[in-house]
């Protein structure tokens, strides 16, 4: 995952190393939260007549998780191609986030 986002490749100073690890975990946590929200919306019966996951819901969640990761890779590759344009749109400057 470190590599998926390519952040923090050159990690010199002490504070920077810590910040890099912290940042990666933050990225992961955010991705996890987003996946939870989206896959719950896609897969769960919202009437809550049951307190457990039905078989179909469980399978749906597993597939949704796999597809969500795949979508990240796909979108990230597409952005890499459209590269510079995307970075300008995101506020310009700097280079090479590894997307």
């Amino acid at each position, binding site marked *: 995952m470190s590599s*998926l986002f390519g952040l923090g490749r050159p990690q010199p100073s002490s504070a920077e190393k810590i910040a890099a690890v912290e940042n990666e975990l933050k990225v992961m946590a955010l991705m996890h939260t987003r996946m939870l929200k989206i896959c719950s919306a896609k897969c*769960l019966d919202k009437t809550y007549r049951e307190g457990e996951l039905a078989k179909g819901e469980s399978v749906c969640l597993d597939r949704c998780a796999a597809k969500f990761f795949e979508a990240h890779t796909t979108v990230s590759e597409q952005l890499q191609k459209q590269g510079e344009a995307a970075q300008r749109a995101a506020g310009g400057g700097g280079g090479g986030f590894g997307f």
Partner: protein
Amino acid sequence: MDQGLTAAEQRELEARLQKRQVKEFMNVFGNLVDTCFTACVDDFTSKAISSRESGCLTRCVSKSMATQNRLSERFAEINASVTAEMQGKR
């Protein structure tokens, strides 16, 4: 993940992670209440939660926790396999 950190750095990191965990937990808790309240509470003829609403909340929390556990497992698995694949390519 944490290769190359000294013991002091490791401690500092752990302190920060614990703060992050508390924050994360608050978020998860807040989202849980919001989701289940939105789905289950819709009768405003009274100011106390009815037994029907209460049952719905309980089931919603259980199911949401189960969802979260399941997705956490998948997340870790997929993440591990993606990382392994990437390491192989280097």
